[in-house]
């Protein structure tokens, strides 16, 4: 049984804002010069009411001529927690039970799909969604699983998190069987709950990031029966380019084999990064079928997630 990623799409907030403008609005902690040195240049911000998740998923269904009735499961994920809901005092708490997954299932017409959410993994939720989708397909519970990631930073919240600048974005990924291309063949996720309190453990998280990331990538490549030299392409998330230069140095992988540079034009769209970069990389690079692609992302919580796909 072959399981593969049949389609990818993404959407960004329609308003583009440069680092200087963000700094003027008090939305950065570091200087624009420092962040530019780390590989950022601008971010995308959603206008009120922009339904990026629905747009990304609609694009995918339309452009790939997928009948909504083909979708057996919808997984909605994100790095940010859902918007907080307040219940007026004395009123029934039904508004606490409004879920994006259900709304999206209805808006997209996925009437045959079971819908559920995935989160509490920061940026790493995207790989967990892919892993769960693959499991559903392998188990025979589904033939087509649509994964939709949505992250929109609340208005007024600082856009910089530990030297990374956040964009609003959404992605959609259709995982299907049988499908011979972009086959996920190995996953490795390291969760270290000790770092659950991101604020209190900030310095330790910075220190833990590199050695654990290296281990996660080495492990997943080995789990795929490969060596690091076999990896044809590394698809990164859009945390600072400088961070990736260091990590690639730890791994001994030359920068030419990584699809770097997107952070400058995309910003860090939290869970959408890997889908964005995977889609762009496939379009830009001439990858032979079955070429091994390694993906990695880190999510607060803390989670280090890596996967190997065969192109």
């Amino acid at each position, binding site marked *: 049984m072959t399981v593969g990623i049949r389609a990818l799409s993404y*959407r*960004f907030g329609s308003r583009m804002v*440069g680092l200087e403008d963000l700094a003027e609005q008090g939305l950065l902690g570091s200087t624009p010069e420092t962040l530019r040195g780390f590989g950022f240049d601008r971010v*995308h911000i959603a206008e009120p009411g*922009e339904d990026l998740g629905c*747009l990304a998923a609609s694009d995918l269904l339309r452009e790939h001529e997928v009948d909504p009735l083909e979708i057996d499961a919808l997984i909605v994920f994100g790095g940010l927690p859902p918007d907080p809901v307040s219940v007026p005092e004395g009123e029934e708490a039904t508004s606490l039970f409004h879920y994006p997954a259900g709304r999206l299932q209805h808006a997209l017409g996925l009437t045959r799909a079971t819908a559920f959410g995935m989160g509490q993994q920061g940026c790493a939720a995207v790989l967990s969604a892919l892993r769960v989708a693959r499991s559903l397909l392998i188990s025979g519970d589904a033939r087509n699983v649509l994964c939709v990631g949505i992250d929109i930073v609340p208005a007024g919240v600082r856009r910089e998190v530990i030297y990374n600048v956040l964009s609003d974005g959404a992605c959609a990924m259709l995982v299907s069987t049988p499908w011979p291309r972009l086959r996920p063949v190995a996953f490795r996720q390291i969760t270290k709950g000790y770092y659950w309190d991101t604020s209190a453990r900030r310095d330790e998280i910075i220190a833990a990031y590199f050695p654990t990331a290296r281990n996660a990538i080495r492990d997943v490549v080995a789990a795929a029966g490969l060596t690091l030299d076999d990896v044809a392409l590394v698809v990164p998330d859009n945390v600072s380019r400088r961070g990736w230069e260091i990590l690639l140095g730890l791994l001994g992988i030359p920068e*030419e084999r990584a699809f770097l*540079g997107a952070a400058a034009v995309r910003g860090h769209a939290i869970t959408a990064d890997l889908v964005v970069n995977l889609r*762009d990389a496939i379009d*830009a690079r001439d990858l032979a079928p079955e070429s091994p692609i390694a993906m990695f992302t880190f999510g607060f919580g803390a989670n280090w997630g890596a996967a190997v796909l065969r192109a």
Partner: protein
Amino acid sequence: MPPSTTSRSSSRRAEAGPPGRIALHLRRSPGAATECVRRLWDPWLDPEAVRVERDPDGVPWARVGERRLPLSISHADGHTAAAAHLERRVGVDLERLRPLPPEYARYFLTLEEQSAVAGWGDPATATLAAWTVKEAVLKARGRGLCDPPSSVRIRSLSQRGVELADPRIAAGCWREGDHVVAVACDGAATLPSVEVTRG
């Protein structure tokens, strides 16, 4: 100067181009979109009557009463560019002129494109100019930045003109003071004349 442009002081039409013109307005204060619409529809139009909205896709539109016109808007360090055509979808991108680190070229330009943009004449900003063209084209397609940059292929780039691999879309790119501007028009083999006004 943009290729095949008209200015307020002179009028020069492109040869064999599609009918109509692209109105492009640049200014440092609000109101670029409104001024663009007035140039296309009616210079006497009351600016207060023009509303700029975004559709669910995030695409900006100008509305005057029941009439609607798709726009393209771009911001760069306090400056705004707005462009529109009465019959075609256009895209505009405005960037502050600056050198981009060379590794960005590897991200969104193929090796062939890296050679092709040499015609820009200024190696330090050629990558930026190419990026501006790609953004304008993606906007003209009505998709914005939700398609891969590599889906736009540049065959040649100079300040005299841009040649794209896709014959169904035309683009131009030029220096505008401290900025670089690119305009693209969907459904056109050559770029309509661009009337540039500055506020």
